[in-house]
């Protein structure tokens, strides 16, 4: 399929004017049915943009300037999600709390409608179930927790990873949850009772020694729109697995950290400084069992998988360790977060 991405001459920006450094972006989520987008940044609040707003001139240039919403009292927000109905936003922070905010048409409520002390440690990732009835969280206490979304009543708890968990996602049918962590493991869970279903060895774990240690293990993960394929991003590569079997499909080297599947095309976006969009060819997938071999220190040996079948659609230099990928408007646009508080927008078109 011939396709292309073209940058839109309109960018978003967030800054609180406090001169304490840029609000580096980490995650982006678009509202399913309204022109708004939220961003998790280096702050105790989320950035909110109205994508239909006109850009205005600020010191850095001409941007659609965002507001800061959903305040936690301290720390930073580490994970958040928007319910598929767009009615609620859930945020989890390094302050250990999980907070639920009601969407009031153009912005969230000023105060949370519910909040709980969710984990004994930073709340690392938050995700609504596809039907919006439940919330899953992982925290630095290595636990996976399941909550009733409307009340934040705790439903289930399961010990998850041996290192800090970093991300989680639901399958589109809501039957399973996948978590990934610094221990290099991907764990597939039954979404109803949090029983572990399978463990997939991604590897790439390190002991975080030295001045600039690479990210360890799984940093971000994503599940394809049909629920068949699981992508995991580590420091230096992205790997794709068959979710039902845990077998490896392929990997893209030198392009990891951030991953997202396109909601309509067979596209996988991945990468940090250099964002690559890969058009994958399912017909050529030949899943194979992972060796699971470990080194003398007990860590999984590096994955040995073929290159992910397909071809590169785009290779975008976003520089300075930007993070956050979101597909908007049914996949017609892609938003890319950057370290300087800017979000660039790209138009995706099929050929």
């Amino acid at each position, binding site marked *: 399929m011939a396709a292309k991405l073209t940058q839109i001459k309109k960018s978003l920006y967030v800054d*609180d004017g*406090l*001169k*304490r*450094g*840029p609000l*580096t972006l*980490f995650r982006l989520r678009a509202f399913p049915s309204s022109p708004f987008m939220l961003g998790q940044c*280096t*702050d*105790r609040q989320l950035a909110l943009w109205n994508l239909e707003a006109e850009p205005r001139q600020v010191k850095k240039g001409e941007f659609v300037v965002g507001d800061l919403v959903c305040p936690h*009292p*301290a*720390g*930073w927000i*580490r994970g958040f999600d928007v319910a598929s109905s767009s009615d609620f936003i859930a945020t989890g*922070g*390094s*302050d*250990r709390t999980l907070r639920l905010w009601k969407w009031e048409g153009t912005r969230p409520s000023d105060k949370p409608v519910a909040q709980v002390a969710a984990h004994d440690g*930073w709340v690392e990732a938050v995700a609504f179930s596809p039907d919006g009835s439940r919330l899953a969280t992982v925290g*630095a206490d290595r636990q996976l927790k399941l909550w009733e979304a409307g009340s934040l009543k705790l439903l289930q708890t399961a010990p998850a990873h041996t290192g*800090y968990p970093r991300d989680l996602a639901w399958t589109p049918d809501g039957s399973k949850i996948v978590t990934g962590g610094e221990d290099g493991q991907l764990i597939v869970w039954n979404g109803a009772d949090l029983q572990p279903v399978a463990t997939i060895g991604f590897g790439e774990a390190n*002991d*975080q*020694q*030295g*001045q*600039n*240690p690479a*990210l360890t293990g799984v940093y971000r993960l994503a599940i394809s729109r049909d629920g068949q394929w699981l992508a995991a991003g580590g420091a230096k590569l992205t790997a794709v697995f068959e979710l039902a079997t845990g077998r490896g499909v392929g990997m893209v080297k030198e392009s990891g950290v951030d991953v997202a599947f396109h909601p309509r095309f067979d596209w996988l976006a991945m990468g940090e400084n250099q964002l690559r969009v890969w058009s994958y060819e399912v017909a050529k997938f030949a899943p194979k069992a992972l060796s699971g071999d470990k080194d003398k220190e007990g860590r999984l040996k590096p994955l040995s998988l073929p290159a992910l079948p397909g071809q590169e659609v785009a290779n975008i230099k976003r520089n*300075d*360790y930007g*993070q956050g990928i979101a597909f908007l408007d049914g996949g017609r646009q892609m938003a890319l977060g950057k*370290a*300087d508080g800017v979000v660039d927008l790209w138009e995706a078109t099929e050929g």
Partner: protein
Amino acid sequence: MAVSHEFSRRALLHGAMAGGAAFGGFGRLFAADSAAQASRQQKHVILLWMSGGPSQFETWDPKPGAPTGGPHLSIPTTIPGIHFDEFLPQLARLAERMVTIRSMTTKNGDHSAGSFLAQTGHEPSRVIAPPPHWLAMAAHELAPARGELPAFVNINREQDVQTNPGAGFLGPKYQQLYCPGNGAPPEDLPPPSVADLAALEAREALRERLAAGFRAGRDPRPLAAHDAIFRQMGSLVASSEIFDISREPESDQDRYGRTRFGRDCLLARRLVERGVPFVRVQHQNGLAWDKHRRAFDCQRHISAEFDTAAGALIDDLIARGLWEQTLVVCMGEFGRTPEIQGQGPPGRNHYTKNWALSFGGCGMKEGVVIGKTNADGTEIIDRPVTIHDLFCTFYTILGIDPHKELDFEGRPIPLVENKLGQPLREVL
């Protein structure tokens, strides 16, 4: 011949075990009673060097909730109203035994120059004679109770001569003995077998004979320093068990953490217990605390590793009766910016205007917190402390006049640069 050889080995072994003549009498040097006695009689320093510049925000002066605070929260310490970073629970528990300074201020934001200043008390370019590491200076001023042991041991890899200064103008006698880290003994140190000791003695005798001709007409002082090192080598071979942390209980190794730094702190305790007066432990290799990038996530790991080992070390020094004679210092060369910069998913750059450190033991007042910064951590608002004040305090605690002058080639060299600074009266 065989009998003679056997006799010689027996005699050597006897010397080793009973305090005989070989290498200055190293026999029962490390018997627990004499070691403990010697240790209790002398002053020690263990410097836990946090190379790279630890962030004051993520250690001893957190500002949770402030725009500059970052994602880390804080936890209460045993000093009412004082909080430390959430990943330092052991140091928070031990705060009442320590001194915490939140108002260190220096001017050199370069790693090499800053490290040099923070370990010598001198700017690198301001003296003609290369100043020694302050622990080498302490070794010079305070003769070890047991002269056969190294006075100054460094554990783990140094970055370069400036980030870990040596003996400087004091010469090789005060140079640190290098242990490579991860709890390992000095490299190439053989086990204390009879054969190894005999071989060493033979080599030493040969070296003495060959050196005799070289000495004629030369300045004896540097040669004497080298001779002392060779003699010390003999003692080290005989006493290599002092470096053997595998002799420590498994439970101790667990308490210190099964990490490189945990093993190194355990080794430091073992050395001090057995009479080594001055030990520098470098936490991780290189500039590990220099967190410009991905600071806040990996800071969780480095802080926890440091906290576990340092906490166990302080606990043990207290429990073993060594705390009143041992100064433990936790510090790096400077602090980090209040601004959270985007040099990679975020981090903090170098900051000298205000930074923090902690030390304790050696009979100083405990539970003292000196200095205060403003709400965002951008300014000192009470009691600035200079690096010269810090060195004046350290030397004073050790019983050394900080403004004493040493003579180097006819030049007076003060222990602390230009006789600057004053001891912190709050801790004395």
